[in-house]
């Protein structure tokens, strides 16, 4: 039985570790590089970013009762309006200013944020797009879809695909770590050093978590 395990199981695990690792390595790099920008709150291009395109649209065809809809329905109702404005992406947030009959909408794609100031009484909208650069795109992907505004998140097909890919990357990393432990245990000569490093890693991890959360 042991012979069967060794000869069959080991090469399968090793190959799965290799190919899954190669497949998700670019995703892992996206998440890892963006950590530096998030941890230090710094983007190579100014976080304020300059407005790269601005225009005003008039005579928009707006759905009825846009001001009275619930947030999810409002997002769905706004999609044709975005099409009229030529803006695509995830509706990130919507702020209603009832007194001024305005909706302030932020639409995001990795690397660009578009602010739309829509006056639903006058049927006009001011559109301003801001480039956030490659670093901004990586940060956006790292945080997407994220925990905020869960009721409307994933209102763009690309966000749903990314959510699937981000989840798949996480599950594959878990698989890689477990299969990696198995592959390491087979290497008898490396067991001692590996075990010492794992214990040191565990000690630093639990030590830090204890100090932070106690």
């Amino acid at each position, binding site marked *: 039985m042991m012979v069967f395990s060794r000869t069959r199981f080991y090469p399968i695990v090793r190959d799965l570790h290799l190919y899954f690792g190669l497949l998700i390595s670019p995703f892992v790099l996206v998440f890892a590089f963006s950590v530096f920008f998030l*941890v230090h709150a710094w983007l190579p291009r100014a976080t304020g970013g300059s407005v790269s395109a601005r225009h005003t649209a008039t005579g928009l065809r707006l759905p009825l009762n846009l001001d009275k809809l619930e947030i999810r329905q409002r997002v769905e109702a706004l999609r044709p309006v975005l099409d009229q404005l030529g803006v695509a*992406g995830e509706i990130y947030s919507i702020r209603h200013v009832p007194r001024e009959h305005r909706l302030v909408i932020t639409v995001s794609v*990795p*690397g660009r944020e578009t602010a739309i100031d829509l006056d639903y009484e006058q049927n006009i909208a001011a559109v301003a797009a801001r480039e956030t650069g490659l670093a901004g*795109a990586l940060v956006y992907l790292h945080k997407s879809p994220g925990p905020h505004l869960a009721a409307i998140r994933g209102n763009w097909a690309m966000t749903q695909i990314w959510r699937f890919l*981000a989840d798949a990357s996480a599950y594959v990393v878990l698989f890689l770590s477990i299969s*990696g*432990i198995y592959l*390491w245990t087979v290497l008898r000569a*490396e067991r001692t050093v590996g075990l010492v490093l794992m214990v040191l890693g565990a000690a630093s991890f639990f030590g830090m978590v204890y100090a932070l959360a106690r």
Partner: protein
Amino acid sequence: MPSPAKLSLWNRKLHYYAGLYFLFFLWLFVFTGLLLNHPGWSFAEFWPKRQQSVLERQIQPPRAGTDLDQARDLMRQLSIVGEIDWTVTRSDPKEFDFRVTRPGRIFEIHADFNQRRAIVQRTGLNAWGVLHILHTFTGVRLGDNRNQRDWALTTVWALAMDAVAAGVILMVLSGIYMWYGLIRKRPLGAAALALGTLTCLWFAIGLKLWTSS
């Protein structure tokens, strides 16, 4: 210059040594990443289950100084330790509001220097809340210049996050190097790597170009 055999050996060692050292950090960030992307997972609920209490304490008004100096003085008097969050713009020098956060606990502090008292609202989170905060506990936020890291342990944790990211990047690069040495596995490996790379490029660069056209 090390020989290719030696380089290959040390590259392999780096790959699994880094993996073993960062194992628990990696599990934390991967698992909490899943939790953050699925706020609807009820088993990991923490905010509705938070425990709150309010207490009022006498204080000595801190000496004139920066907001940070005064906040630290008040925290010392109130025996509170953590990362300071500036939540409101101060309009009255005799009143002072700020938040102190550490994984698992949030303190909202309102100090009235005229009355010589402080009201502290303490929010305690369960283990899921601790994990949740650990993922994002950096003390700084993009686009927010006011908040800076001001607790030594936040800096330690931020450095740990940097180290984990650097370790993961090294593991990816060392893994690619190891694969490249396996001549028979190059075609299928290249296909997997290309598929992953093209997908990531599509999301990081392609989507912006596609939606611009």
